[in-house]
């Protein structure tokens, strides 16, 4: 099977997912503004939880739980993006 350019690109995305435990834990721009301007407490808890905080539940090691969540999410989004584009594509002849 010929190596396609996007194998490399998908690998790059997965590498980023594996590096995700290195992410800064500081609040993001909106959270920071919400804290400093006093409306952070108006945030409501999610209606339901699946993988909150990008952690796969049941995995004790937090870094591993984050990496697994990152890999799952990255692959799911590859599938959605690829599948959606496939549904919307032109006739097969146009390559």
């Amino acid at each position, binding site marked *: 099977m010929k190596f396609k*350019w*996007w194998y*490399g*690109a*998908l690998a*790059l*995305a*997965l590498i*980023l*997912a594996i*590096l*995700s435990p*290195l*992410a*800064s*834990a*500081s*609040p*993001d*721009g*909106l959270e*920071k*503004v*919400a804290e*400093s*301007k*006093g*409306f952070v407490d*108006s*945030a*409501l808890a*999610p209606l339901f939880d*699946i*993988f*909150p*905080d*990008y952690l796969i539940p049941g995995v004790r090691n937090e870094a591993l739980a*984050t990496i697994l*969540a*990152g890999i799952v*999410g*990255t692959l*799911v*989004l*590859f*599938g*959605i*993006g*690829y*599948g*959606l*584009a*496939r549904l*919307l*594509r*032109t*006739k*097969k002849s*146009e*390559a």
Partner: protein
Amino acid sequence: MHIPDGFISTPVAVTGIAVAAGSVAYAVKVTNKKMGEKQIPMMGVLAAFVFAAQMLNFPIPGGTSGHLIGAALAAILLGPWAGVLTMTSVLIVQSLVFQDGGLLALGVNIVNMGVIACFVGYYLYRGVAALFRNRRLGVMVGGGIAGWMTVVIAAVSCALELSISGTVPLNVALPAMAGVHAVIGVGEGLITAAVLALVLAVRADLMELQKA
């Protein structure tokens, strides 16, 4: 910049859902039958890359962090409408599966980081890149400026939504949101320019997909 539920009022959230739904429906209509074969893996890879990159918060001075939004990158490589679909896919998964960004707030998050960011990013890039004779320079400067501006404009839009909701006055929200995101946006600009430079170096033909 994912808005959680509770930061915005119900009317603002519902308006956001309506605008987002209309935009996505139109994006499907515009992109339907226009996707070329090469765009199929590109959309998959961009959705995957944007998701993964959004997990990697980088620190900025003052105890804050930021992460790539990726809308400028997606819109530049796929065109604005397919970019909207890519960003919407990411935002829906983040909200439903990872509880990042509220469910009711999903509409405004799609409007800010999908619709507005993709169109600002795409047209600003096209305008700036056209000013340069040197293609590589034009792509990098155009991508950098477009990336930075998408973050600032999305932050301004977010500040407007917060103030219309009565959460925080506009004269407080606007400078605070624009100020911190003007710094975060530098990261967006650098990453956007770097990824575009990589694409141009490795597979320059992929820069033309959005014109198909």
